């Protein structure tokens, strides 16, 4: 029997992390941001049918970047977990924090125990009655969870996009910002200085703070066009 070469655990973890990061960096980015009437999620997505942003439950949305089949599997698991919990207990017992923890468990488990980590970064967002109670959970390929405020950026080139967002004067007045303003801000931040992201490659969805049971709304092409033209 041949002995496998010894590889230090630090090296294994580093290799896996590099592998996952490389996969995620290839993908296009997305931004979630709080504004006056809820939470807007804007993604760069050339496809009109394969979605990055979707509904999990009444006030909870999911967004993922990286490998489509992997984050879509996570999305469906989230829908199942949320619907099961709402069925067994009550609709108000379903919350983003619990979902984010469960996602973190799965991602962490796969990162340490499987051959290959998931090449994804996901977001679980929940809109509340008050902007201060909104929740944005940013979950990484290794199960790390960040509880973000105001906005968060997922995907390739996220550091540059993050600093472009930070520089905007609009960041100081998000509580009163209109949807069109934050969409424009996100679009510019995603585009960068050298290009303009085409409207048809913007996937936009909103969690409304209106109090309707299902807060999630996906904007269709006409609505996105109208917003960008303002």
């Amino acid at each position, binding site marked *: 029997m041949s002995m496998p070469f010894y590889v230090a655990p630090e090296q294994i973890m580093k290799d896996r992390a590099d592998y996952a990061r490389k996969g995620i960096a290839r993908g296009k980015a997305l931004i979630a941001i709080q504004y006056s009437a809820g939470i807007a999620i804007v993604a760069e997505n050339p496809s009109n049918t394969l*979605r990055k942003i*979707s*509904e*999990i439950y009444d006030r909870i949305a999911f967004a993922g970047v990286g490998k489509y089949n992997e984050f879509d*599997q996570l999305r*469906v*698991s*989230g*829908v*199942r*977990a949320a*619907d*099961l919990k*709402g*069925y*067994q207990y009550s609709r108000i017992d379903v919350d983003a924090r619990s*979902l984010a923890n*469960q*996602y973190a*468990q*799965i991602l962490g488990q796969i990162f340490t125990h499987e051959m290959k980590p998931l090449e994804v970064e996901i977001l679980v967002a929940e809109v509340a009655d008050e902007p201060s109670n909104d929740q944005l959970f940013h979950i990484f390929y290794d199960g790390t969870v960040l509880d973000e405020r105001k906005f968060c950026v997922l995907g390739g080139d996220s550091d540059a996009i993050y600093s472009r967002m930070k520089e905007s004067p609009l960041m100081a007045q998000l509580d009163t910002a209109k949807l069109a303003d934050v969409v424009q801000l996100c679009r510019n931040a995603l585009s960068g200085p050298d290009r303009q992201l085409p409207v048809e490659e913007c996937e936009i969805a909103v969690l409304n703070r209106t109090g309707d049971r299902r807060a999630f709304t996906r904007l269709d092409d006409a609505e996105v066009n109208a917003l960008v033209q303002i």
Partner: protein
Amino acid sequence: MPFFTPGDHPGASFAELLKRVGIDPFQKHLTESSAQVHFPHATTCVALRFADGVVMAGDRRATSGNVISHRSMEKVVSADKFSGVAIAGTAGPAMEMIKLFQLQLEHYEKVEGQLLSLEGKANQLSMMVRGNLPAAMQGLVVVPIFAGYDLQKGFGRLWDYDPTGGRYEEREFVATGSGSVHAGAVIKVGWRTSMPQDAAVRLALKSLWEAADSDSATGGPDTLRGIYPIVASITANGWERIDDSTLSQLVEELIAEHQERNQEV
């Protein structure tokens, strides 16, 4: 969080998911004597087509034997934005079935990323009624009606069910429950092709009125407590419940009509 491997997952079916995690919503272990106990029963519901869609209506009474067990039950509910379900029969399993059906439609919509077709929704409900068959054989019968606006075809459609899950699409109207003979007769006489919405609402209300007049298990409008039948329309704009102030107005008109009729005798 349920995490399934590809090729071994329950798909977009919520009922299948429940089974996979070990939850069985339908009671299959009833004893022989359960049919002798009086469980609360829900009664008359109707649905009829009109020019722009369908109108659904149901009374609010639940009875256990000869006792009125509930006065403000909601047996007509929206299944999703473009369809509604109304249930007559044993209240417990009926309400559970409604809850499961609503969840199933939403679950499918979220997992698949698009709405189930109206035909598909009707079929789903059919399977649920069939799932309840063992309980139905022991007396816990649940008989729904299903109606909705077909977005692909552009008109309203309605379905009638039997306790075995048999599904029958009707062109004009359906009625279910203990007062369905009386309610159905009223609608049959008054129904016209492409009638406007307000006429359809009036006719639905009148049919429930007559059912309540002749069937003790069906409740009429309760003006004392301000409890009116549930009436809703489903059109291309979706489900819309007719509010109680409109209904109270219509009920007053109905009463006036009856008084006038009696004076002539």
